[in-house]
């Protein structure tokens, strides 16, 4: 039985209707990240699950119960917001206990749960402070604490780290992951536009664009076998390289050909049949390209070198075609160098130039 089940849901957003029958099942204890660019509908979906937006059609089930028309408080959920959304006139303790007070929880029980959550998040020393006396990172810890005390089965995160600076974001990201591991059975649904958060946190990623689910899969599936060109380009930094060409049959085997450059597709698992002779776009991740003095693809010139510490990204150019390769940070490369490239054929992706779908 799924912990959260979105069944054929559409949401009427003022005059526009979004998600034409979107369905999604989330298992208990799973960490699911909804990932996509701004306006892709990920927050709308989260708000619909929370009950903060009414659905126009379809159903939402949480914990084996149809909660489509339940109030948010009766859905067994807790939520953390990007803007922290702490009650400004209450101190931290009051913020964390507000929900329990509303539910008429006995006072000793409130005390116990607030203290426990505060200890877990190391905010015990902040309990008497007001939100305006806290830093951004502390505020978000308190907001997470407020969600924790509710003892919810499902935790919803709406871009919780987007307002924090890079260092704090990394710290809290790890902390959220640790929290999920420690809570064990808690289901988490996490909305973000940050692919690193998605990759590091998720058991499963739901990539969305234009109010549609583009792909659902584990981070490694999404990264290694993107189901279309949008997913391929949205995930991964530096971006995947795309090269236009066609697929040709040669000696009983298929190969990709772009101008004079060829790549054998022996190890490629096609998801469609009869691809020989069709146009295709080849996608190669920068780390699957080896730079060398000799190699199958010759005569590239180094355009730009971006040292990143552990690795270096090298932008190579051959006429109009520009390719980024990721190489070891120790390697000495300079602008203007002539290089050859070798592509790891087992790791490439092929897309249809018309539909963008994986071939």
């Amino acid at each position, binding site marked *: 039985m799924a912990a959260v089940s979105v069944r054929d849901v559409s949401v009427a957003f003022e005059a526009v209707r979004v998600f034409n029958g979107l369905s999604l099942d989330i298992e208990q204890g799973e960490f699911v990240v909804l990932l996509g660019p701004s306006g892709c509908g990920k927050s709308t979906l989260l*708000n619909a699950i*929370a009950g*903060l937006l009414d659905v126009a059609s379809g159903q939402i089930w949480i914990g084996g119960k149809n909660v489509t028309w339940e*109030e*948010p*408080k009766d859905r067994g*959920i*807790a*939520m953390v*917001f*990007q*803007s*922290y*959304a*702490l*009650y*400004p*006139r*209450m101190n931290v303790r009051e913020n964390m206990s*507000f*929900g329990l007070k*509303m*539910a008429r929880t006995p006072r000793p029980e409130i005390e116990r749960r607030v203290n426990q959550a505060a200890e877990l998040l190391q905010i015990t020393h902040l309990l008497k402070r007001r939100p305006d006396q806290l830093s951004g990172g502390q505020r978000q810890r308190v907001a997470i604490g*407020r969600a924790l005390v*509710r003892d919810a089965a499902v935790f919803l995160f*709406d871009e919780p780290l987007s307002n924090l600076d890079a260092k704090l974001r990394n710290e809290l990201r790890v902390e959220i992951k640790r929290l999920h591991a420690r809570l064990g059975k808690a289901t988490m649904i996490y909305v973000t536009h940050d692919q690193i958060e998605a990759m590091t946190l998720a058991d499963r990623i739901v990539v969305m664009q234009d109010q549609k689910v583009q792909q659902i899969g584990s981070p490694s599936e999404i990264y290694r076998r993107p189901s279309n060109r949008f997913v391929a380009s949205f995930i991964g930094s530096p971006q995947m390289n795309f090269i236009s060409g066609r697929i040709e049959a040669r000696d009983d085997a298929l190969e990709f050909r772009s101008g004079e450059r060829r790549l054998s597709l022996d190890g490629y698992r096609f998801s469609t049949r009869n691809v020989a002779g069709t146009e295709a776009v080849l996608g190669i991740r920068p780390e699957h390209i080896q730079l060398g003095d000799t190699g199958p693809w010759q005569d590239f010139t180094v355009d730009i070198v971006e040292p990143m510490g552990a690795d270096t990204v090298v932008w190579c150019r051959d006429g109009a075609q520009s390719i980024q390769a990721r190489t070891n940070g120790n390697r000495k490369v300079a602008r203007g160098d002539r290089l050859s490239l070798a592509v790891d054929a087992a790791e490439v992706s092929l897309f249809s130039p018309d539909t963008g779908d994986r071939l």
Partner: protein
Amino acid sequence: MTAAALHPNNPAQASAQPAQAVRSEPQGRRPRRLTAGRVGLYAFLLTAALFFLLPLWIMLITSLKPMEEIRLGNILALPETLTFEAWTKAWSAACTGLECNGIRVGFWNSVQILIPSVILSIAVGAVNGYALSFWRVRGANVMFGVLLLGAFIPYQVFLYPLVRIFSTIGIYNSLPCIVLVHVIFGLPTMTLMFRNYYAGIPVDLFKAARIDGGGFWPIFLRVMLPMSVPMLVVATILQVTGIWNDFIFGLTFAGRQNLPMTVQLNNIVNSTQGERAYNVDMAATMLAALLPLVVYFVSGRWFVRGIAAGAVKG
């Protein structure tokens, strides 16, 4: 490089000091403090201030003079014999028509009208604004439009229909009647002000409160209202001064027993039997204006905000 090279236009300053010292000072020509424009500006402001202060000043000194001095006609002259007789008479013995109990009757009437009217109109306005901003009420925009329209229609249009309605339901000429009128007519402005204030509060806060289990009232009372203190202050100032200064509603709806201070003042000033007691009239006027004056002096900054927020009020 020397400072002289940096500032060829200002050799006097540059050559006198080493480069280090010059660099830390503000550079360039010092703006002149007193210009013709500035003088004109202050002259105008001073004139305007005098223009508005003069009546108050004349009222104050006239109220402190005995009638013999007033008869001499030097209205700007300071009182030669200072007397508070006119003030005590205005407060407790001036005649409003047939009764001669002074303006204090009106003062207590005004207080009785003011307190429930201010509290109720602000309460209703705040709840309205909250509902319109956060709860997606069906037809909220239409309702808000109608309310706004109400704010722009002149009061006089409503007087007769309201008199008919209130006498039909039997509360005409009573305290509840005048309070109700003030609440109704305060509603559009109060709603508008609170709606705009709540529109500035992040909607995430409301969502968090809903997930925490707050309903309509708990969220309003425990989350939104504590955040509304600045707006409550402004609304209170606006309503206190507005309702205290009201004349026409008091005259029309309050009934003889509850006539507010403004109406009593009018009766004192207009009931002429023999010589007009200018000092008593002035003292009575000062008494009637005292509360708004105090509110003004105590809460200057907030008062200006209240005026600005109430600029839509006709």
